[in-house]
């Protein structure tokens, strides 16, 4: 498929790279995984063999880098079930805009 700018879904190498981080995030879909993440986030991440770069991105809630490293939004969004953040804030972070500008300029909301 031809590239569409800034659309990571079409980049296979990128998608495959994110498997471990995505598997980690899938584990937050059950209460035991969420409890382990809350209790000792680093230990939880280590279970899935994440690289230091991935661990840093997750622990600093660096959404842009998580996506850039192959994280899938629908999976890493489960982190927001443990540590709440709005999906529009995740969007704004990826674009590099402040939240209010993102709502206004990208989504056409009155802010």
């Amino acid at each position, binding site marked *: 498929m031809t590239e*569409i700018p800034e659309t990571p879904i079409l980049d296979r190498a990128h998608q495959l790279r994110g498997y471990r981080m*995505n598997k980690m995030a*899938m584990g937050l*879909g*059950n209460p035991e995984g969420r409890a382990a993440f809350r209790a000792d986030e680093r230990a939880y991440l280590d279970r899935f063999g994440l690289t230091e770069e991935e661990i840093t991105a997750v622990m600093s809630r660096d959404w842009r880098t998580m*996506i850039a490293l192959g994280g899938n939004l629908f999976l890493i969004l*489960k982190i927001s*079930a443990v540590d709440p953040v709005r*999906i529009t804030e995740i969007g704004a972070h990826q674009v590099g805009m402040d939240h209010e500008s993102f709502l206004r300029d990208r989504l056409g909301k009155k802010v």
Partner: protein
Amino acid sequence: MATIVGGLGTSHVPSIGAALDKGLRDAPEWKPFFDGYLPAQEWVRERRPDVAVVVFNDHFNALFLDRVPTFAVGCAAEYHPVDEGWGPRAIPPFTGAADFSWHLVDHLVENRFDPEIIQEIQVDHGLQVPMELFWGRPSDAWPVRVVPIFVNVLQYPIPLPIRLYELGRALGRAIETYDSEERFVVLGTGGLSHQLQGSRAGFLNPAADRRFLVDIAENPDELANWSRQKYVETFGGEGAEVIMWLVMRGALDPEVVVRHRHYFSPASMTGAGMIVLENA
């Protein structure tokens, strides 16, 4: 033989379910969105479908990247809401229609579609939200049984739009050859325009969304022949899932009547569309 009373299309944005959970149905931000579904709910009450075939995708809640079926048909007696991270939502489980599911799987395989067969699975907002929008949230049990058809629209390669249209035609014939007096409705879900990933996040295309709500009724052959790239470009990386509406459209006759149509943008980060179609 069984009959198709119509086809329904709708977005399945998770924030819609969350808004209902938080009691925001009539909040200023949401009321116009939900009010747009009232005529469709009235249509559903009048047409009284017995079975809803719901074409949707799981969002890595019941299925993970380890095994990715391109098409899968639920053949279970019951489908419970899945834990998406916040615990399972407090809505009743969905009763299946396993007898029809097996008829459908037979029919598909005999017509050269080869879906995965699923006998035990939970369902996420992709199925829940459309059911709540068209039927309202029941206190104890849903007044209709469901047959879920899962489509992979997340892990590329996703199926070609034309293939989904053809799947819809096969689904339509499966319903019409099912030895039953039951009334069926087919739901195509997902879309419309949105992108959640990458620096193109927040992409919306309301003009294309409104065009789609016309063309899905009038020019489905044209939409079915678009490339996947064109869907991604036009509707955004995640909005390309709107190709699932083509299954619903393919199950109907070439000529349809639009009973209701609704558009609201944005619901969360998504251009939200709805349509109610009947065979002409």
